[in-house]
């Protein structure tokens, strides 16, 4: 049994319990679906499905629910292609049952996190990184960044957005170990 939730509570639940599973979920789809370029869509399908379901009733065991959903989505896709290699979806039990409960996405700022952020920033394209650093480290306005980098404000926005897109993938989609 679960309980129905407000929009805010749904968001909090998603950030706290579902989003930390993204790395494991991404790994699961990579292992079990041949086409790498579909993985992002598959993960999104899981998010949409579990959030729509949680709006009515929040599952008690989020992890099990997320991975069961992932398997069902895969099976649907296999069915549509009329190939059903059932054994490939097998490791979902292990994933769903993993005892490790994802910690809340704590805003704790540890040295590890600093290191990870540094590593993530290093992987951005140079212009994106520069824009993000000027914004977040130097606290410059978009106009100041534009004049510093000799580009338009619109381009600054685009660099920041691309930087954020990439950082989101690194933060959530990759194992932080």
């Amino acid at each position, binding site marked *: 049994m679960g309980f129905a939730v407000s929009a805010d509570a749904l*968001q909090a639940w*998603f*950030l706290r319990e579902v*989003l930390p599973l993204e790395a494991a979920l991404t790994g699961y789809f990579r292992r079990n679906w041949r086409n790498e370029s579909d993985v*992002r*869509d598959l*993960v*999104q*399908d899981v*998010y*949409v*499905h579990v*959030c*729509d379901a949680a709006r009515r009733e929040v599952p008690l065991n989020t992890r099990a629910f997320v991975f069961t959903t992932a398997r069902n989505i895969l099976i649907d896709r296999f069915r549509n292609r009329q190939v059903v290699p059932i054994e490939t979806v097998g490791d979902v039990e292990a994933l769903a049952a993993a005892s490790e409960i994802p910690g809340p*996405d*704590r*805003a*704790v*700022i*540890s*040295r590890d*996190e*600093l290191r990870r*952020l540094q590593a993530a920033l290093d992987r951005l394209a140079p212009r994106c990184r520069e824009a*993000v*650093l000027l*914004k*977040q*480290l*130097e*606290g410059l*306005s*978009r*106009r100041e960044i534009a004049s510093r980098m000799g580009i338009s404000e619109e381009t600054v*926005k*685009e660099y*920041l*957005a*691309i930087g*954020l*897109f990439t*950082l*989101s993938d690194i*933060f*959530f989609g990759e194992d932080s170990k």
Partner: protein
Amino acid sequence: MSDAAENSAHDIQMAASRWVIARRAGEAWNADDQARLDSWLDQSTAHRVAFWRADQAWNRTFRVAALKGAPPAFSSRNLAGMFPVMALRVAASLVVIAGLGAAGAYLMRGPEYATYRTPIGGRETLRLSDGSQIELNTNTVLRFSRRAGQREVILDRGEAYFQVKHDAAHPFVVLADGRRITDIGTKFLVRGESGRLEVALLEGRVLLSAPHGIDAPSADLTAGTVAIATASDTSITKRPLQSLRDALSWRDGMLVFHHTTLAAACAEFNRYNSTRLIAGPEAATLTIDGTFRANDVEAFTETAEDVLRLHATREDGKTILSR
């Protein structure tokens, strides 16, 4: 399901990132913008989820990046000739004061001293001509002997990190809280506050004398040990080197906490800031982890609110964290 058929997850996440940037990193965000965002969010669960995700990532960047800003101007003074001749060169930002009484009367006889002092939140590096270096932490008063050939320092108040070039003919001596710390080639941290002296050894060896007037052998401290001395007792414990290094994070303007109680963390912040941070009775024993900029009380307060689910009340120079 979602409108993933017409919009790939990639496109949706990119659009969500643009929204987050527009809202969070823009200068003008008005009701119309918010209405447009709301309508985009209402179009599908996929939009909503992608927005939450990107917003969370931006938060994380901001929180962590906020700590990586350049520490406040870390001045370093080159005190050429300080040792052994102890030429007195006082940098403009340092206040010279004469004859502090806190170190015990027996210290006051004899040589003259040059005094260095840092304000609350300040830091100062003194480079000595013999290659040694002393870093003064917040709210610290330290005096040098000016007698030729003598390497003697008195820590009247606060905390200092010493990196000493060994010279067997001229031992480097730190006097603090009635004790004598004699260096045998080393890096060590000395912190004195209200009758309690803490000496942490990062490298090398030092001898820590018994309190003045008590006839007992000196304690021989080696790397990785911490001595805590009161007027009558000395206790010595081994600590992991990492924890000693964390204790030195103030040199980069940072504070590192590992399972530190909120009360202790607040006390640390209060050493560096004029804003008083107070842990309410029910919050005092909660523990917190993390690395924080010593002068950013606000970032710490926000993190404590988020992580420990506390509420901050701000009133005239005080911030109270409570349940």
